[in-house]
């Protein structure tokens, strides 16, 4: 089986029609559940996946630890999930000139970058799970790009009240992070202490 898979990879990379058809069939079948969410750019997505598959196979990333079919299935799922997230990710306004250690200047609006290490993400998830459902809901709206007027209408609260509630949720996230860092690592709380540079 392993030899067969390597043979398919070699034939695919040589562009043999049968192998390309086989791999492409797998890609389309694996990506099928994502069609509805990514319908607006479906053809582009399939092309992105094909390029990614070709890149990985060309670099010898498939080492036969699983069947080629399963390996490709995971690559397709991974790529489709990333595409869904990129599609819904809200762009931050360009404020580079105002921040001392913000993103590189002159790049325009940028998407919040995910934490580079899983440990960092683990801590962010722990902070998040300690947040109230109200705070999550308020910030979900913010992240989705709603203005404070839209949010106050949707929630039926005064704009001033809404702004204060959002601020309290932000402060709660900061204080939870300080608690977790202080308790887990025994460090002294410092106002505005950063988890890692990737957060900002």
């Amino acid at each position: 089986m392993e030899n067969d898979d390597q043979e398919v990879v070699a034939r695919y990379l040589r562009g043999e029609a049968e192998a390309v058809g086989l791999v492409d069939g797998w890609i389309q079948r694996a990506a099928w559940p994502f069609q509805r969410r990514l319908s607006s750019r479906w053809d582009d997505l399939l092309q992105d996946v094909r390029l990614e598959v070709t890149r990985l196979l060309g670099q010898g990333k498939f080492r036969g630890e699983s069947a080629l079919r399963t390996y490709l299935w995971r690559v397709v799922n991974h790529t489709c999930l990333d595409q869904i997230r990129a599609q819904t990710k809200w762009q931050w306004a360009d404020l580079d000139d105002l921040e001392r250690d913000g993103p590189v200047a002159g790049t325009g609006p940028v998407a919040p970058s995910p934490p580079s290490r899983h440990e960092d993400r683990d801590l962010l998830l722990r902070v998040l799970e300690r947040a109230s459902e109200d705070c999550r809901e308020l910030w979900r709206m913010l992240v989705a790009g709603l203005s404070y007027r839209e949010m106050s209408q949707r929630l039926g609260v005064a704009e001033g009240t809404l702004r204060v509630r959002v601020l309290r949720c932000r402060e709660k996230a900061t204080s939870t992070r300080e608690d977790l860092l202080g308790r887990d690592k025994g460090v002294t709380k410092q106002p505005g202490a950063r988890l890692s540079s990737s957060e900002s």
Partner: protein
Amino acid sequence: MMNCEQAIELLPWLLNGTLQESERQAVREHLAGCDRCREALAETRFAWSVYDQHLPSEALVALAYGDRLPDGLDPALAERHLATCPQCAAELELVRTSRHLEEDERIAPMPFQRKDRAAGASTTVPAAAPLVRTSVRAWRSSALAASLVGVVALSGWIHNGQRVHSLEERLAQVSTGTEATVEPSSPQPAPPIASAPVPSAPSGGAALGETERLRAAEAQLQEAQAKLQEQSRQIAEIEKQVQSRPTSKAGLEANFQSVEIEPAAAERGGDADAVEIRADRGAAVSLTADHRETHKTHVLEVLDAAGKPVLTVPGLQRNTGDVDTYTFGIPPGRLAPGTYTVQVSAQENGQKVAFEKYLIRVV
């Protein structure tokens, strides 16, 4: 001038870019000269990262396949997050569905139907859709034409067959045991004349009268058989023509029209939306129904501009499907050029109840 409290409260919306220009400008001016508020901006970015936090895609794929999570991620924490994050839970389901497709070849994914809002019609991904739609339409036109021909031919054939059968029965009943015999040439199963019940033999003038009636019946039978043969020949000819007709849409529409009409056009009034039909061509018309079905049959009337019926189709049945329709045919040259209203109605307690109206313009 904006103070620190006002500026800090607006920072989340400064980040998501939804402040009005005047507010945005005021906050930015304040931030430019205030270290404390710039620090608050960094904290706001951190809060955004927290509240927009999700399981990484590789973790979702690992969970769907029952694998170990990427290093540094606590499985229990991931499970708790999934329980409270609808987005991650939905994405995990997508990956699980994909995995099922990998494992079970028997699952056949349905083609995804995408609503084309501009055209108001559905298309199928991938982009071979226009070709598919054209061929489907041509197929429908062919099927509709063949059905109409078949219905006409079949009803004539059955009618004549029944007539022949009835005449043969009558002939058998009046048979007096004379030498006259009739060879049944009809394919319809008819009771053998020899085995028909034989009444007691009349005599004299009565016998002569019976013989005349028998001859008349014989003549009628032969006439009906001749008609049947002629119709069978015509049916065979029509079938031959249909089979030899090109199957492309252009070929079909050269001699035959297939039109679909929505009732809304008539409701809006005027004839701007009337569907055009060529007077010199036959047309198979499919009318989209929009009332709830309550009757077995309907009557379809084609009314001229003065409201006078010029074509009536009784016994119209509704075709049920994704979209219910009524179908009927207009023979070539049957309607003179002009605008007509097609009215669908039904009988209810002896009263005529009108339903959908459609507009056609014969040119």
